[in-house]
């Protein structure tokens, strides 16, 4: 009986001892806070955005947790969590800093890529607007559409905060934009050639001077500006919007190239009733055109069995029509020109006479601003 009481007493003492062990001291709450912080870091993508720091954090966390385990293995009375608690506090501070760094990095990445996306989008839009100036814009618009698609994909990644691949998509978009710019330059580089500009300016000046000297009517067509100017005794008396062919900015070389010729011509026939309302037929090909055609033929630049072409007119039917190389006007404007022009009236067709106020000025500005 006495032995039983002793056993009972020992057990009670033992349980009291264990209860005390559980009570004092408690594991530091910072340990759990660090776990929660680790989750937050993981969720924020710390392993991607600040890999080195995150690995360091994880190692420190592991080491601190091991210390807690070691402390817990001791009898309650001998446990001392203070050193590891201090370690956890430092870890928490570092973790909070890391989280702020990751969030800041993500925010700055988001801002950076948003700005890049917006800049490329604006560049595409501007280039699209420029293509309105010329009909030969197919390759430009094709590349711009591809650039837009890449940019749209980048936008979807931006929404999902998947910045890691965004650079590639923006770079791909930029490649297509550059292709578009190159395609535009392929069409317009001739218009930026100083010698060509001087030649066209000389033709235009001579036409105006002759109109003044001979007191005649003269027609000057500016392809780049898409304008037809009517001169009377050297003075501009009317300016009209025109349309050109699919490849209107190119100099006509042969039949079917859908280009509009450049040179000094004159009206050889007035056609009061044409499929395109009224028409003024010019003397294309002139002597220079024939020389250029022969030279191109020798160089193999003209398809076999293809002639030089002809029947280049100034006609009605609308300025927005795509012609086969002729110069199209709205019917009301055609009436005006038809009324004043005569057989023999000078018709000078130039590419451009100046860079200012044309797409060329825009391109220069565009190149400067990138």
């Amino acid at each position, binding site marked *: 009986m006495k032995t*039983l009481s002793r*056993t*009972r007493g020992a*057990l*009670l003492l*033992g*349980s009291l001892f*264990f*209860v005390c062990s*559980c*009570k004092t001291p*408690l*594991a530091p*709450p910072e340990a*759990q*806070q660090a*776990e*929660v912080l680790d*989750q937050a870091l*993981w*969720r924020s993508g710390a392993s991607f955005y600040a890999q080195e720091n995150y690995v360091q954090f994880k190692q420190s966390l592991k080491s601190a947790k091991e210390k807690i*385990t070691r402390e817990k293995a001791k009898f309650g009375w001998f446990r001392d969590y203070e050193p590891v608690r201090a370690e956890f506090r430092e870890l928490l501070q570092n973790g909070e800093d890391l989280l702020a760094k990751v969030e800041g990095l993500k925010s700055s990445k988001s801002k950076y890529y948003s700005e890049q996306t917006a800049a490329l989008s604006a560049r595409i839009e501007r280039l699209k607007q420029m*293509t309105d100036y010329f*009909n030969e*814009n*197919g*390759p*430009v*618009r*094709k*590349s*711009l*559409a*591809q650039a*837009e*698609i*890449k940019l*749209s*994909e980048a936008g*979807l*990644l931006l929404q999902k905060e998947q910045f890691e691949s965004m650079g590639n998509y923006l770079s791909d978009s930029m490649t297509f934009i550059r292709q578009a710019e190159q395609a535009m330059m392929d069409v317009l580089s001739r218009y930026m050639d100083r010698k060509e500009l001087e030649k066209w300016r000389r033709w235009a000046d001579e036409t105006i001077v002759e109109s003044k000297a001979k007191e005649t009517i003269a027609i000057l067509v500016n392809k780049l500006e898409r304008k037809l100017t009517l001169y009377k005794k050297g003075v501009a008396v009317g300016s009209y919007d025109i*349309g050109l062919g*699919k490849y209107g900015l190119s100099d006509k070389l042969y039949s079917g190239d859908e280009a509009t010729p450049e040179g000094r011509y004159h009206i050889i026939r007035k056609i009061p009733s044409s499929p395109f309302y009224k028409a003024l037929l010019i003397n294309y090909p002139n002597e220079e055109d024939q020389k250029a055609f022969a030279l191109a033929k020798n160089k193999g630049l003209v398809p076999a069995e293809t002639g030089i072409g002809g029947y280049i007119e100034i006609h009605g*039917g*609308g300025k*927005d*029509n*795509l012609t086969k190389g002729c110069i199209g006007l709205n019917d009301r404007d055609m009436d005006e020109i038809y009324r004043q022009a005569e057989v023999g009236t000078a018709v000078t067709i130039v590419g451009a006479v100046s860079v200012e106020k044309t797409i060329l000025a825009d391109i220069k500005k565009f190149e400067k601003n990138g």
Partner: protein
Amino acid sequence: MKGLTKNLVLVLAIAVVLTGCKQPTQLIDDAKAAIEDVTKAGADKYAADDLKKLNTDLTAALDEVNAQDKKFLKKFGTAKEMLTKLKTDVDALKAALPAKIEAAKNAAIQLQSEAKAAIDEAKALLAKAPKGKGTAKDIEAMKAELTGAETAFAEIQTALDAQDYIGAADKAKSIKEKAAAVVSQVQAAIEKKK
């Protein structure tokens, strides 16, 4: 004998208290490892919402562990239940992941078809679009844009073949959007001509 039984009950009670005092470390580690595994298997791409829920559940379980840890009489039973359930959920997600990947693939293929349909619709509209006054040049530009979209369309299949179903879906969405924009422009051109 009666006293011995009482003592045994007491010992058992103390054992229960002792066991209850211990954090379910193994369960926590197992749950974390399981989440990491399922993430690597593609859950972050193909089951992002489910993965987010699992992480939230893990945080809740850890919160429960923390709450109990502060108490004099610790009861980790609920936390253990939460962690066990979490592990079951992770395993379930892992088992369901191939189906989710398959669903993502099917969704990408569906979007590919929709992009193709949008391109075809734009093509058909362009074919019958008025090429007269005020539209001919615009129509040519739209045709060129559609050619660009058609060229990009091939990239969808490349992404599908590379098992990048999210990328394929994004490409398809972007191309569909571009083709739809062309359709709107052509319709506007047709309206302009009326």
